[in-house]
């Protein structure tokens, strides 16, 4: 059982974790960089410890200082949140070596899933469809050319250890392949200290759909339905929803069963997400996110489950608190990420309130938005009986939202919500580019 938890993160996710800890009677210890001395997570936690200067590499990524802070403040466990050290197997290892509980999967699982080639192997072993292409790392240009011919252009090269678009290259013609391999491999080496790359069929305009799972690590795995995260800008998710408007009940059952089987196969422990690409009624395994995700609240609302609470129950050895019967999903939930496009001080802050609206944020009147960290400053999540009503409720909520002192993407989020393709539900990951074409590229 966890009595005292250190949250190795900042911003809205740290605040969100602290709130659930308060609900569960768990003492909280926040860590903060010198730039975050007055931020909300340091104010809300029972104790707060400065772990370094503004730069993440010396504070929120400083494994030694974080673990020492947890030990000295007598914590039982560390929650890594999202980003930062949340998918760092070395951190998970060090946490356990220090005698603390890591709220997440084992270091072994994280390491395996972090390798895109190995994780695709696991998926195939579990009978989950993967995009046509290389199951192996690319070793030489000749065999790569043969493989590309086999699966058909366009293909995409990806860093095995990568993410976020780095080390990625789309190849449309055979003649571009050798050069692309060299560049992608070099980029992968630079960013992830691992030049291994693999090749996949490139889907032109797929949907991005993921399944949320919870596993007690002792054989019980449940899924909380899917999330559709197809609205993206430069591979960054902007709007997420559950259920997906393009997944029918049969596909949902199948994706859910496939996902549960994969987590059973690899003996996954904790909360995790399996990401799929969906096109023309078929779906393919993409990767596993071995942590809680930014968009987890939409699944919380449709499933009536607090995912952070489940993480803490699992990590504390109490197992899952979900009913035995298949989980009923109710209504439709929609999340909009509110990002700051400038830095500064928030001089006025009125969050939207009322029926159907949830706000997760670390903002307050007087909060400082610094240039050091992620630009996401709030998440607005709505829950209503169906998609059209969720969209209208989200528009209402975003129009009510007052943030003065920094610029935000609220207006462009409203524009997306009101756009015809978004409302129709029929669109691909290119929606943002279609709605806001870059004038320079025209």
């Amino acid at each position, binding site marked *: 059982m966890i009595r005292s938890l250190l949250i190795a993160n900042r911003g809205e996710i740290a605040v969100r974790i602290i709130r659930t800890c308060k609900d569960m009677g768990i003492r909280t210890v926040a860590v903060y960089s010198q730039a975050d001395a007055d931020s909300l997570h340091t104010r809300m936690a029972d104790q707060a410890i400065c772990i370094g*200067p503004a730069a993440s590499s010396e504070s929120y990524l400083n494994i030694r*200082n974080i673990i020492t802070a947890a030990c000295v403040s007598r914590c039982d466990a560390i929650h890594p949140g999202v980003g930062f050290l949340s998918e760092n197997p070395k951190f998970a290892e060090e946490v356990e070596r220090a005698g603390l509980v890591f709220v997440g999967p084992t270091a072994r699982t994280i390491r395996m899933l972090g390798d895109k080639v190995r994780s695709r192997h696991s998926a195939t072993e579990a009978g989950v469809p993967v995009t046509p292409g290389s199951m192996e790392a690319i070793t030489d240009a000749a065999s790569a050319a043969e493989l590309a011919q086999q699966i058909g252009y366009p293909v995409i090269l990806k860093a095995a250890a990568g993410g976020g678009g780095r080390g990625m290259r789309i190849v449309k013609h055979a003649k571009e392949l050798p050069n692309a391999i060299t560049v992608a491999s070099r980029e992968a080496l630079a960013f992830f200290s691992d030049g291994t790359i693999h090749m996949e069929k490139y889907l032109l305009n797929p949907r991005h759909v993921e399944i949320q799972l919870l596993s007690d690590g002792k054989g019980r795995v449940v899924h909380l339905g899917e999330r559709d995260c197809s609205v993206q800008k430069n591979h960054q998710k902007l709007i997420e929803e559950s259920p997906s408007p393009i997944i029918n009940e049969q596909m949902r059952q199948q994706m859910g069963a496939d996902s549960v089987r994969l987590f059973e196969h690899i003996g996954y422990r904790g909360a995790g997400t399996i990401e799929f690409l969906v096109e023309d009624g078929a779906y393919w395994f993409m990767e596993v996110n071995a942590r809680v995700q930014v968009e987890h609240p939409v699944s919380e609302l449709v499933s009536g489950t607090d995912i952070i609470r489940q993480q803490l129950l699992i990590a504390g050895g109490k197992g899952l608190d979900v009913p035995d019967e298949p989980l009923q999903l109710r209504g439709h939930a929609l999340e909009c990420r509110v990002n700051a496009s400038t830095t500064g001080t928030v001089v006025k802050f009125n969050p939207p309130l009322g029926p159907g609206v949830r706000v997760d944020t670390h903002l307050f009147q007087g909060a400082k938005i610094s240039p050091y960290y992620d630009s996401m400053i709030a998440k607005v999540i709505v829950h209503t009986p169906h998609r059209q009503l969720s969209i209208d409720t989200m528009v209402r909520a975003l129009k009510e939202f007052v943030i003065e002192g920094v610029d935000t993407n609220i207006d462009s989020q409203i524009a997306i919500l009101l756009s015809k393709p978004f409302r129709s539900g029929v669109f691909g990951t290119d929606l943002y580019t279609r709605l806001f074409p870059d004038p320079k590229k025209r």
Partner: protein
Amino acid sequence: MEQKELQQFITIFENSSLSEIEITCEQYSLHMKKPQAHTVVPEGYQPISHHAGPQHIHAQPAVKVDSGTKTITSPIVGTFYRTPSPDSPPYVEVGDTVHKGDVVCTLEAMKLMNQLEAEYDCEIVAVLADQGALVEFGQPLFEVKPL
């Protein structure tokens, strides 16, 4: 309190640079405040109003402008020890002169004993952290006078 006394207190307060004053005696308590110069300070969030606040130990600025002394701050999170081992004397005492490279304390982190060295010659003016206490990044450990 007498009229004259009050008038004197107000004059004293008016001539001061204070914005507010509160006096409590056995006989009376007095609370005075000046009109604000018109700054609209955005008030901060204080969500835990019914509750004890978090135990903040803010790192202090490294240089005390007024007295010419400096502070040696903690470069890591750890446990502060003035002595190399439980039965040893402290590395340094107030009044000691230390030279660049001399060890001034041990900071334990993840079972490693990190010895903190002085970066310049100085005299120890005060020890600011308690034996065995948690110290944060940037927390002042010693007040020193550079030599």
